[in-house]
């Protein structure tokens, strides 16, 4: 039969066991403040550990997660705005949307245009606005065929349209091709990269985002460069806002 060999004395063993039990009870009862103290001490080590895996890919993943969260927030706000319009009796404002697949897009199509698979048989009409999704407006229907339509992007060279910078400053935006646009505003106008250019009215929508600001000392105007809300070269589907 196996024989147990105790230590030099059983008293320290019992004392140690009691101390351990007391320690466990202490942790169970005061877990939250003790956890706080633990993390206060462990935070530098954990931060150091995080810095070991901080690569460009992880930073981009973090940015993607933030963008996804922001997109979800925007979608929620969009639904809320639509709901408010409906409650206030402005249901006529949002036009009927026709979903269309993009058959040709830049650089395969010329002059910053898209060819989409919806035409007059689907209800598409000349001049209808085209959205890249939700409130991002990217162009206007310039030609309508039976089952297809050509969309002229706002960035097409020579295309000009009136819009509002940040919803307040009226600007005349001119397309430059390649998805970019340009306008001039008086010096002193507050503008920054990321600001939006919108169409006036409740159903306006975002037409461009400021990508660069060219402010020179002593000049009367500030040059503003903008891009479409979506990259036309990557568009797979668009929504045609049917005018009613």
């Amino acid at each position, binding site marked *: 039969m196996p024989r147990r060999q105790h230590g030099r004395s059983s008293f320290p063993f019992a004392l140690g066991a009691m101390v351990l039990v007391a320690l*466990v009870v202490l942790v169970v009862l005061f877990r939250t403040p003790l*956890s706080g103290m633990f993390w206060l001490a462990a935070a530098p*080590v954990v931060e150091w550990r995080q810095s070991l895996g901080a690569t460009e890919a992880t930073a981009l993943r973090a940015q993607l997660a933030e963008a996804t969260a922001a997109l979800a927030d925007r979608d929620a706000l969009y639904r809320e705005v639509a709901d408010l319009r409906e409650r206030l009796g402005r249901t006529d404002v949002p036009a009927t949307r026709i979903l269309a697949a993009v058959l040709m897009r830049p650089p395969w199509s010329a002059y910053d245009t898209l060819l989409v698979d919806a035409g007059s048989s689907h209800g598409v009409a000349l001049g209808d606005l085209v959205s890249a999704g939700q409130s991002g407006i990217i162009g206007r229907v310039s030609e309508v065929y039976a089952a297809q339509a050509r969309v002229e992007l706002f960035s097409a060279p020579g295309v000009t349209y009136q819009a509002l910078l940040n919803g307040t400053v009226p600007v005349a935006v001119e397309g430059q091709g390649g998805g970019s646009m340009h306008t001039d505003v008086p010096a002193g106008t507050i503008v920054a990269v990321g600001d939006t250019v919108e169409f006036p009215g409740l159903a306006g929508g975002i037409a461009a985002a400021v990508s660069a600001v060219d402010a020179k000392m002593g000049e009367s105007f500030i040059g503003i460069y903008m891009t479409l809300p979506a990259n036309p070269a990557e568009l797979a589907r668009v929504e045609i806002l049917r005018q009613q």
Partner: protein
Amino acid sequence: MSLASRYIYALSFAIAAVGFLWPFWPLCIIGILIAALSGRYVFVIIMALLLDLGSGVPTGLLHYLFVPFTVLAIAASLLRVFGGAYFLDKTPPDTL
């Protein structure tokens, strides 16, 4: 403290710490088992309590354990105390 003890303390703590920081919880369990089954009871329970403090309250079925690492450490320690006598023969016979 013997050299073997030092190695066991360092190894079990390092494994558990790596498991906590990686994070890969099975390494924490391995660290606890090494320390507990080698008879370092005080050390293993303190280490398990620290791991429980760092890991927070578990979810799901483990929620009822509240301090699962500590429960594991106690169970492994008890296994060592009561079961070790049947597996670890401290008076090996000189002859067969």
